[in-house]
């Protein structure tokens, strides 16, 4: 008996008892659907995390320093060190981050205000939409200049800044000198929800004169390790104590994030995979019942010359067809659920091609695997006994 014939027969049987077929498939639908949804959402979360950290720059090295009274890492010294090591460093910027309430007339929001150097924009490859960035003169003169992210502009200025507009940051008046280009759809908490000011001013706002955080940018991915080693030597030379400073390598951090999310994907996929196993057992159960119910039919087929493998094929193909049909519906539902939940959680989640192929392959394999035992039972039936049964 040809494969096509077996499929046709399987299709007839499925249509012949729609309710039962559907209930049998339901396990498969839920199993495949949950695998696809969970893996899709997990992929969305991973993309979000990786995206967020990538914005910080994979070539970045973030250095945190605890200055003491006698051992101080001086800003000018850091700049000089960076210039001397031009081979491995593209540049450096101090980074004095804090969260303040900012105000225009009567409207106010809370946002992150970061004190940075004049090279910040170039190091991060961000463009300006309008105006200029913090200049060296601003830093030198501790001038209250600021550059806004688009979210702040939208929120406090209805999207339009006029030259000479000012903003109050923690009660102090700042002149808006520039606006950054939109980077992340102008939503709250994104990299558009930010204000940059001169680091010297930020220190004054925070009430401490020493800068404790720097962002170094390596000259290229291949120089990240060299830069880290050079920094380590330099900082140890000044502070003489590894506990007083830390160097965070963004590339390494990204690797760790990827590892963690991959592990979580496996765990979630595994849990959903268990439901596939349960679905397979459900299919096997129904197929066993079906074999008993159709003993007479098997007897008739055998008496007319059906060989063991003909009967075997018939039942295996039927199980596989039910399983794959369930898998297919599961893929459709899972894909829809992934997109819907992604929208709900504001994650850009999409079903991954890999999870679809995996789910479909697994459902076919389960159908064949769990269909094998009932099919084998059917194939081995004695035609005389089978014919005699009612």
């Amino acid at each position, binding site marked *: *008996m*040809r494969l096509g*014939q077996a499929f046709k027969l399987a299709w*007839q*049987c499925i249509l*012949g008892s729609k309710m039962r077929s559907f209930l049998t498939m339901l396990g498969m639908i839920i199993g495949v659907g949950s695998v696809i949804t969970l893996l899709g959402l997990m992929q969305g979360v991973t993309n979000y995390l990786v995206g967020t950290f990538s914005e910080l720059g994979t070539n970045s090295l973030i250095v945190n320093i605890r200055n003491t009274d006698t051992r101080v890492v001086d800003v000018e010294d850091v700049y000089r060190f960076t210039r001397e090591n031009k081979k491995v460093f593209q540049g450096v910027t101090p980074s004095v981050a804090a969260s303040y309430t900012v105000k225009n007339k009567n409207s106010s929001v809370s946002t992150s205000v970061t004190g940075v150097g004049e090279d910040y924009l170039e190091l991060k490859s961000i463009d300006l939409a309008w105006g200029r960035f913090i200049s060296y003169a601003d830093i030198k003169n501790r001038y209250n200049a600021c550059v806004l992210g688009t979210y702040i502009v939208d929120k406090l200025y209805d999207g339009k800044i006029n030259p000479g507009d000012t903003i109050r940051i923690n009660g102090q008046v700042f002149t808006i000198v520039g606006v950054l280009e939109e980077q992340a759809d102008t939503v709250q908490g994104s990299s558009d929800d930010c204000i940059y000011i001169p680091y010297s001013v930020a220190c004054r706002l925070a009430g401490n004169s020493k800068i404790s955080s720097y962002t170094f940018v390596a000259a290229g991915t291949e120089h990240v390790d060299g830069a880290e080693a050079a920094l380590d030597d330099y900082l140890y030379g000044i502070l003489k104590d590894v506990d007083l400073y830390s160097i965070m390598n963004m590339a390494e951090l990204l690797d760790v994030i990827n590892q963690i999310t991959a592990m979580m994907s496996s765990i979630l996929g595994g849990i959903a995979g268990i439901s596939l196993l349960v679905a397979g057992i459900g299919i096997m159960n129904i197929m066993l019942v079906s074999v008993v119910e159709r003993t*007479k*039919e098997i*007897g*008739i*087929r*055998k*008496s*007319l*010359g*059906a*060989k*063991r*493998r*003909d009967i075997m094929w018939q039942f295996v193909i039927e199980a596989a067809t039910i399983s794959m049909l369930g898998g297919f519906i599961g893929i459709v539902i899972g894909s829809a659920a992934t997109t819907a939940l992604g929208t709900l959680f504001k994650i850009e989640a999409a079903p991954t091609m890999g999870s679809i192929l995996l789910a479909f392959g697994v459902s076919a394999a389960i159908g064949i695997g769990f269909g094998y035992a009932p099919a084998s039972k059917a194939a081995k039936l004695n*035609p*005389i006994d089978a*014919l005699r049964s009612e």
Partner: protein
Amino acid sequence: MKKKNQAEEACRGPLIQLIDIHKVYYMGTSEVYANNGISLTINEGEFVAIIGKSGSGKSTIMNIIGALDVPSSGQYILKGKDVSKMNDNELATIRNKMIGFIFQQYNLLPKERLINNVSLPLLYSGMGAEARREKAMEALKKVGIEDKYRNFPNQLSGGQQQRGAVARALVTNPSLILADEPTGALDSRTSEELLSFLKQLNEEGNTIVLITHDRSVAERANRIISIQDGKITFDGDVGEYRKQVAG
């Protein structure tokens, strides 16, 4: 008349040869001898009835002749092939190519249209869809229900279903037609029709073996073999059978 038959049989040669067939069933620890040394020869072109009460062993001998089962000991030679030692798949091929079954309960598949039921044996012999259809229509025409080919079995009368079953038995053009109580589920008029049809098939050259417990059905055959307690108690033509029963 008898001479002519013998001459015909001689030139056609034996189709079925059973040589000292024993069949033992094991019921728990006890052995049941269903067939206890049966030997017989059926030539091509014969119309033979095997008659016996239930439990006589006639079903067992039918199963063996129909290649549904193999004997515990003894030899079964069908058209020169030793069937008694065959495995499942070889038996399936024999059933498929050489034997056409007609059952008491028709045994049509309820979810298949008549034409698909009739062409089922051809499906298992690997014939293409177009040829299957053609052959099945031919067989349906022969039994006179070709207009019902699209119907499902439950849309047909008992007599029509049995005709469908006969068409299915004929479709492979088998060496042997084996009918197991074919009239058991039919009323007397349709029974009569079926038996006449079997007779006609026999006259066209088909070898028919009919299993029955009913004397009046058995007497429609040319030769009667009576079985009792797993042994042949009578083997002869209808006239002799009547004489023996009367005597």
